[in-house]
């Protein structure tokens, strides 16, 4: 191990931010906290993006590792004990200083602190706890803090940290325990799920405490999240989404993040992915995740053993609607909120607006447009006062062809940024869909 003493702060920051970048969660959302006139900092529930990095992702938190040293050997990770990389470690004071100075200048919303495992899980977790404790009590920092819990750390340390952090996460890493055994032999489902359960139970108890005594200290008020790596192991979308659904329902997670696998170290256990990271697949999983969280869908409606993967060419909601034309068209001026939620092109906010606005007068297509409904998608599935927007057929092939002509089915950034990747998918799926490239990619 080549840990260097007396490295300057700039070099440490370089190493320990580069090492943290594969953790995708960077949101600062989920908690509202006023500044209160003393100290520094507050928190805004919808979250705030401070900048966008060269890969187009929102940067909201100072996302760093405490150290990139590690005694574990996860195959997909550049910090594993067998990697030949330069190692560094911050001190708690260094992290406090950078956080405070960045925050004052409005570079960041707060801190996202994660770490490799130095000496032992407890040793590392304790250093993380000390850092956060200093920030909160010595520097009076009231901004957002997200801490990644170290698998295998003492529950007491986890609990103490949870009273100082806004959000905690423990990464599930891989969707099945079998993959975990193969690629991350030092971790196990139980060292991951146990603390997840502990945090969940503590959050639930804390809610009770807060109803009795509203000044009780708050435990992880922004909830907990986790992350799965997509495409490093052979699980299909159905398996992945079923795991996510389980985490939402049984562990009350706030968010599940999906991270398209990037092969950083050429490990032979891992796929090479010549087409680059599976960004489009990741995108479809996020879309489906939204359908679970905001649109009352269940995984079993979207996928099945026989259809285990999402349609690459259509977003999951359009895809679902095409297979359930018997529900359509729905009448905008009458359909229930739940029904509106299932119409492609109608978001949950527009659905709310529709339900409220139609009380006063019945709505037209023009009104829908103003409320943010994407008509080019919705028009096949809706009527306004009994009329469709154009004469169209309610027929799967016909609608499917038209929907696919809409290039926004594949988000612009993937269309333009990841063209190579698309053509990689095209070859594989071409036969199934009998589509030409021009149909997929033409404007």
């Amino acid at each position, binding site marked *: 191990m080549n840990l260097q003493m007396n490295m300057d702060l700039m070099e440490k920051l370089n190493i320990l931010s580069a090492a943290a970048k594969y953790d995708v969660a960077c949101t600062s959302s989920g908690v509202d906290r006023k500044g209160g006139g003393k100290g520094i900092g507050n928190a805004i529930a919808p979250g705030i993006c401070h900048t966008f990095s060269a890969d187009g992702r929102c940067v909201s938190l100072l996302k760093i590792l405490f150290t990139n040293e590690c005694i574990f050997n996860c195959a997909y990770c550049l910090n594993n004990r067998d990697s030949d990389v330069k190692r560094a470690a911050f001190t708690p004071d260094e992290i406090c200083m950078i956080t405070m100075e960045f925050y*004052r200048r409005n570079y960041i919303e707060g801190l996202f602190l994660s770490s490799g495992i130095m000496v032992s899980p407890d040793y590392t977790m304790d250093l993380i706890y000390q850092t956060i404790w200093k920030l909160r009590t010595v520097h009076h920092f009231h901004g957002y803090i997200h801490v990644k819990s170290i698998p295998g750390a003492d529950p007491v340390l986890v609990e103490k940290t949870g009273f100082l952090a806004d959000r905690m996460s423990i990464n599930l890493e891989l969707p099945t325990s079998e993959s975990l055994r193969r690629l991350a032999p030092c971790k196990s489902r139980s060292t991951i799920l146990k603390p997840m359960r502990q945090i969940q139970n503590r959050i639930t108890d804390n809610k009770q405490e807060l109803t009795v005594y509203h000044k009780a200290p708050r435990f992880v008020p922004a909830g907990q999240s986790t992350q799965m790596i997509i495409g490093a192991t052979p699980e299909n979308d159905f398996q992945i989404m079923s795991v996510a659904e389980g985490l939402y329902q049984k562990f009350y997670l706030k968010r599940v993040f999906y991270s398209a696998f990037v092969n950083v170290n050429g490990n032979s256990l891992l796929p090479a992915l010549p087409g680059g990271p599976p960004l489009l697949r990741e995108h479809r999983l996020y879309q489906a995740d939204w359908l679970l969280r905001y649109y009352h869908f269940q995984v079993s409606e979207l996928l099945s053993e026989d259809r285990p993967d999402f349609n690459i060419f259509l977003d999951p909601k359009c895809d679902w609607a095409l297979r359930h034309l018997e529900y359509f068209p729905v009448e905008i001026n009458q359909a229930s909120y739940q029904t509106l939620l299932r119409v492609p092109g109608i978001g949950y906010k527009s659905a709310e607006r529709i339900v409220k606005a139609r009380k006063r007068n019945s709505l037209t297509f023009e009104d829908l447009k103003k409320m943010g409904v994407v008509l080019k998608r919705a028009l096949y599935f809706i009527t306004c006062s009994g009329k469709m927007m154009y004469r169209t057929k309610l027929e799967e092939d016909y609608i499917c062809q038209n929907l696919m002509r809409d290039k926004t089915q594949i988000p*612009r950034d993937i269309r333009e940024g990841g063209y190579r990747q698309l053509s990689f998918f095209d070859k594989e799926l071409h036969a199934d869909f009998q589509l030409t490239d021009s149909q997929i990619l033409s404007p």
Partner: protein
Amino acid sequence: MYIFLCEDTLDGIFTGVYDAWASRYGHNNVALTTQVLDNYSLFDEYIPVQTDYEKSAKVARTLKKRMGEEVYGELCHAASAQEEDPPKKHSLNKADAIYKTIVLALSLPDSSKVLQYLGEPYVNRVFSLSRRTGNEAHHLLGFLRFQELENGILFAKISPKHHVLPFLGEHFSDRLPQENFMIYDETHHLAVLHPKGKGFFITDTQDLDSEMLQRFSSKEQEYQKLWCSFFENIAIEARKNPKLQNQNLPKRFQKNIVEFR
């Protein structure tokens, strides 16, 4: 038609609302505008509104009480929006849209529900104007950058389209109560000043000491460098995507952001 000509500020518009209401010409016979008209119609009567902070405050109080903080906030956002220049055909002037929305709200059993009436063109106008200001203000909560001056004051420069300064002043006063800071809006030539431990105020920037604003603290450079190198390190090379980056962080903001300069 009686047309009330108000100043294009929140207080100007609220004073206009007060005067129009008090005039008793009947809601159907009055209109408000913030536009400087170059064509006066012979059939209308024009009434210049003298901005009056007391009247404006009365209107604000009533609105908050009757419609709640949320709707009040939306109306303020709408009033602070910069309208299209030149105005689009058929687009309602914001002052008039605000007035008519208030009239509708006060006629409802529950005034706080007024923004649900999106089928009404003036409510729709208020909604979309408010969204524009709200979006820009929200962007700037994140995109604004302070620099530390030699005298310890934190200084930020912004160039917003809409009059978002009051919203930023409020946000940063809550966030940085123990700092002396200043936010300079170069579009509207106004600045928020926040003395440590006190409330903020807005002032015009005629006698801004531009020389003082060039003298940074000795540490400032160092932190800027640290931040810029963090910013470069955090991007994933395999996902590089400048188009997405520019789409999410529009170019017009970039000139005031240290990591893009």
